[in-house]
């Protein structure tokens, strides 16, 4: 059952865009190959060629040494290749069990054997036991799950065929650190079993930790390959992006606690409650970058949505000393709030509309009647170049952008409004290092200009490197506050698990 | 309005008279009407005059309620209407059928339960089901003959018909063709359906006028005549064609309007009376009272049709009279009508 797959000179074009340009890849049983590259470099496309979803224009796939042509994802599955898709392949209306076993339902006399199906699902869920809510059960419809739980189901679905080659396309992007660790334990185990694993991620730490070898894509071309042991993180970054030096680790010059204390409190929240929040109180100063940490699904999303007026809540919210109660995002926007939501495709983008319209939807009201289109194009173009957005033009539909570039559009539409309060729900998910560095600079600049930022991230390094303070959430409450010296990785993880209560730094 | 005695009985019955179940003394009759289409003035007037005529009988203590099953529906829906009437235990059913064969089984079921079934307006060829209505073919011949004569037996015309294939339309168009056969020099340039509504008739006529600028005349029927006339008035062609009208006050208004511009204007309007249904109600009541139908007076495909003569024909001779008397206090949508009196329907029964 030892497997080997090699892809030779794969080319794939989408209209004028060359997604893959003679790309190569080699993987063998028992190893983890990190497929890395900047946003839009072709990683997802490459994985989709390997699993039969995309038909390459040219090039060859060799499976176990024999040339292979997958006519459909089904053919690839039959050959033992399974995939965790970046944008998930789950049917929302169907239950966890139905999703996991779709096309491979256990049968008895030709009919589906539900009992066996439930049992097998429970067995699979046990692999991640303890890292998700009790809501995640075999017979729950997937649409009722949180993003990280959906991600886990997607992983289990891929694993359930007992594949020889497992492709993980940004499978860790929505997972919290505990879930990632569990996944890595499993990956190590699967490696021992002789499975081959393709691992796509933008988190350098994860790559360094798990991968045996790497393969780097730049603009659809394979620009480097080798053993992980022989390379440093900065070597890889240098391969990925053309400009040599990019800050791969979040860093920002922070004001001291004293300095912050002298500023006025611009956002104050008292006893905020929603279905998921059990009374949250916090204060943020003008120009402060407040981090929100914790495991996935502890109410961070609700906190941001409620502040943005998108969820009904009880409690008091005070902006610049004035009590407000926003019941619709547009009221929040009018008060200078902006939210970069967590699920880019579902909540942030208008897929078939142009980049221009995506950037300008919150702002059309500023362009008069009839709309001043020239001015709208100019401002949108400025933001796009400021974010280094790679696109064919402002009139291109966003559906053709890579994940990371699409995320830039979501951020860009709020930058156009110069918000005074910026709420960020895991904004760097799926963003490459170059864009991340640019984004970090942007955050720093916004803070300096006096923007108040509330920043939830599933990436602990970001929180540690960037934030003035981090509030860790657990079970719908703020369980601890970390800042200055107490803001360390260990403390963050400990607080996430709800184990200890850290004292705030004086 | 009354009925000119075109079909007045003269001779005594020859065939064996049919017997209707005689009601026990003192029992009041319940009559049901099933109507599958209400969105037209014809049907409106029909239902209203049924109610009025039934009121007469109710006041006389002969019938009690008139059960009305009337809604826009399809064949299945009308079957349901009829079943409901049967389940409500009516003594007679008047039915304006939406389909010539589709109701047969259901009507037979009613007949087998001893219910008197009369099809109004539309002739059915179903055993034991009576029909009450005008002779559609003759109705069309009247105006077609007038048109042909007015054209002096020659010219180019177009025809706007109702739903192709609808039995009434088929009978009417047969009548028109029969007449036109006698006038070989009248050429039919085109024929199209106005679907029996004014707006479509108007649209079709507009098309015709654009395609045939030198039209000599046209034949049409019912409400389409108003639409067609509107189209001609709007297009205002250099030569005003010879037009066929309809027996409705609204058309008479157009006629009057045209007369003001052209005192020599002439047309014809033949009434298609909704009153055949209340006439049918009178026949039903008489049958329920045990009167025997004089079968020799009946006509139609299966010899079960009460043929009602056309009550009103408007031409230039009686236009002013009809327009100023009948239409004076009626809405524009009023259809020239005629309901036989109880005395008049006696002609169909054995004395």
């Amino acid at each position: 059952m030892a497997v080997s797959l090699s892809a030779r000179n794969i080319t794939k074009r989408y209209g004028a865009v060359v997604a893959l340009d003679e790309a190569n890849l080699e993987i063998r049983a028992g190893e983890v190959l990190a497929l890395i590259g900047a946003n839009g470099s072709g990683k997802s496309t490459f994985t989709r060629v390997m699993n039969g979803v995309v038909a390459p224009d040219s090039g060859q796939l060799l499976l176990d040494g024999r040339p292979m042509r997958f006519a459909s994802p089904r053919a690839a599955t039959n050959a033992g290749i399974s995939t965790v898709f970046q944008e998930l392949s789950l049917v929302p209306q169907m239950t966890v069990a139905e999703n996991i076993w779709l096309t491979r339902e256990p049968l008895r006399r030709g009919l589906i054997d539900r009992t066996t199906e439930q049992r097998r699902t429970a067995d699979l869920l046990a692999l991640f036991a303890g890292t998700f809510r009790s809501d995640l059960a075999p017979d729950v419809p997937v649409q009722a799950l949180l993003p990280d739980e959906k991600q886990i189901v997607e992983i289990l679905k891929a694993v359930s065929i007992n594949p020889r080659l497992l492709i993980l396309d940004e499978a860790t992007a929505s997972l919290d650190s505990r879930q990632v660790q569990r996944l890595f334990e499993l990956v190590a185990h699967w490696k021992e079993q002789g499975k081959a694993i393709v691992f796509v991620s933008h988190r350098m730490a994860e790559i360094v930790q798990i991968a045996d070898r790497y393969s780097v894509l730049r603009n659809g071309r394979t620009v480097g390959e080798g053993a992980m042991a022989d390379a440093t993180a900065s070597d890889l970054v240098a391969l990925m992006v053309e400009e040599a030096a990019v800050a791969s680790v979040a860093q920002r010059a922070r004001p001291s606690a004293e300095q912050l204390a002298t500023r006025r409190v611009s956002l104050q929240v008292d006893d905020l409650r929603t279905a998921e929040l059990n009374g949250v109180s916090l204060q943020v100063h003008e120009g402060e970058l407040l981090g929100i940490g914790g495991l996935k699904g502890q109410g961070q999303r609700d906190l941001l949505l409620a502040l943005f007026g998108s969820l009904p809540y009880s409690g008091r919210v005070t902006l610049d000393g004035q009590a407000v109660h926003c019941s619709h995002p547009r009221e929040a926007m009018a008060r200078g709030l902006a939210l970069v939501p967590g699920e880019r495709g579902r909540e942030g983008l208008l897929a078939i509309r142009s980049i221009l319209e995506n950037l300008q939807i919150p702002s059309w009201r500023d362009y008069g009647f009839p709309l001043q289109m020239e001015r709208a194009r100019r401002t949108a173009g400025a933001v796009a170049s400021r974010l280094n957005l790679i696109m064919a033009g402002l009139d291109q539909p966003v559906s053709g952008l890579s994940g990371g570039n699409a995320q830039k559009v979501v951020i860009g539409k709020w930058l156009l409004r110069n918000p005074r309060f910026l709420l960020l729900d895991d904004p760097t998910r799926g963003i490459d290092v170059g864009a991340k560095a640019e984004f970090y600079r942007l955050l720093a600049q916004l803070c300096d200009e006096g923007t108040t930022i509330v920043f939830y991230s599933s990436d602990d390094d970001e929180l540690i490197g960037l934030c003035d303070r981090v509030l860790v959430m657990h079970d719908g409450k703020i369980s601890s506050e970390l800042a200055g010296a107490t803001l360390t990785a260990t403390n963050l993880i400990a607080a996430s698990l709800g184990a200890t209560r850290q004292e705030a730094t004086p | 309005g009354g009925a000119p005695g075109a079909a007045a009985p003269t001779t005594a019955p020859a065939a064996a008279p049919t017997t209707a179940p005689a009601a026990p003394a003192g029992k009041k009759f319940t009559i049901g009407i099933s109507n599958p289409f209400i969105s037209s003035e014809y049907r409106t007037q029909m239902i209203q005059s049924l109610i009025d005529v039934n009121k007469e009988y109710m006041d006389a203590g002969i019938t009690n309620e008139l059960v009305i099953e009337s809604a826009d529906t399809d064949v299945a829906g009308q079957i349901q209407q009829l079943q409901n009437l049967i389940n409500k235990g009516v003594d007679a059913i008047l039915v304006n059928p939406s389909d010539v064969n589709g109701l047969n089984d259901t009507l037979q079921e009613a007949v087998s339960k001893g219910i008197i079934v009369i099809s109004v307006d539309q002739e059915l060829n179903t055993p034991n089901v009576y029909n009450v209505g005008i002779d559609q073919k003759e109705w069309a011949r009247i105006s077609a003959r007038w048109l042909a004569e007015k054209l002096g037996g020659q010219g180019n015309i177009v025809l706007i018909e109702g739903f192709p294939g609808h039995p009434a339309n088929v009978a009417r168009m047969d009548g028109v063709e029969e007449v036109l056969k006698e006038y070989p020099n009248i050429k039919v340039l085109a024929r199209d359906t106005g679907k029996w509504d004014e707006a479509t008739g108007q649209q079709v006529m507009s098309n015709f006028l654009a395609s045939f600028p030198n039209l000599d005349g046209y034949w049409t029927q019912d409400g389409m005549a108003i639409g067609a006339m509107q189209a001609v008035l709007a297009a205002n062609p250099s030569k005003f064609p010879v037009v066929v009208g309809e027996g409705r006050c609204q058309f008479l208004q157009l006629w009057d309007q045209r007369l003001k511009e052209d005192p020599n204007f002439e047309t014809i309007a033949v009434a298609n009376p909704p009153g055949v249904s209340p006439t049918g109600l009178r026949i039903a009541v008489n049958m329920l009272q045990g009167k025997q139908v004089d079968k020799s007076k009946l006509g139609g495909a299966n010899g079960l049709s009460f043929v009602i003569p056309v009550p009103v024909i408007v031409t230039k001779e009686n236009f002013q009279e009809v327009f100023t008397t009948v239409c004076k206090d009626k809405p524009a949508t009023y259809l020239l009508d005629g309901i036989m009196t109880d005395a008049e329907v006696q002609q169909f029964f054995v004395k």
Partner: protein
Amino acid sequence: MRRLTISPPLAAVLLAIVLFLLSGLLPNGFGNNPDIALAQAINIVRLSVFLGVIAAGQTLVIISGGEGIDLSAGAVVTLTAILTYTIVNGQDAQVLPALLAALVIGGAIGLVNGVGVAFLKVAPLVMTLGMAGVVSGLILVLTQGNVSGAIAPIMTRLIARPVVLGIPGAILIWAAFGALMWLLLERTRFGKHLFAIGTNRTTARLSGVNVTGMVLGVYALSGMLAGLGGFLVVGNTGVVHIRIGDPFLFPSIAAVAVGGTLLSGGKGSYAGAMAGALVLTLITSLLTTMQQPESIRRMVLGVTLLLMISIYGRQRGFRQ
């Protein structure tokens, strides 16, 4: 390798022109007489106007997404045509009040549709279908089958008769109307928000678009436009009957589709719907002139629709 693409409105206009030229070749077509051809062309465009105006509301509702469609348009046209007819009652002075009434009543019915769709989450197809029944019922209750009234001379003059250069008023009204629709869709916040909610309502909401308000507004507007359609239709025909609007309903949807508006929402134009209305009117008129029976007409209409949507209505494939 670029795929040959053609903009749907353009494709529809081209088809209309080809059909028109073809109709000239028929035995009783205009042949090579430019005067008759012009008269015929004007007549066709004039007949397309009413369908075109009614299709405007349909365009907006369909672009707004969420399976948006307005099946009550036909019934609303009928109701407002009857209202216009009775209110005007032959008097020029009553024309404006009648127009106002048509717009208000149409808008109110549209608003009820909007409430059902936006607040009660009823699927638009069945909500508007149900409302079509309710409005038809209302017409029966109100008229009891009898409609009396008359249109005013000024309406005939403005709508049905030539106004300048032999062009009927209805066509001029339509041209101005088309420009307004373009402005509304492409150059106002409303238009941009409309495309946004048609594409993704969650995104739209989180970008500050008042989704509920937009949905309510769009259905109300569709009702108003159907009301305007009813007003124009009766102005043209000069007569009403109790089903005058019915024949416009399905063609209004077909016109939108032929014009390339995505029935799933978020993409489309009114220019397309205008071209679509022209195509449909032409086909009907062509087949009438050719003396084809109803069966052939329907089949031709079906095949044309299938062809048009096959040209540009194809959806993305799963395998890329």
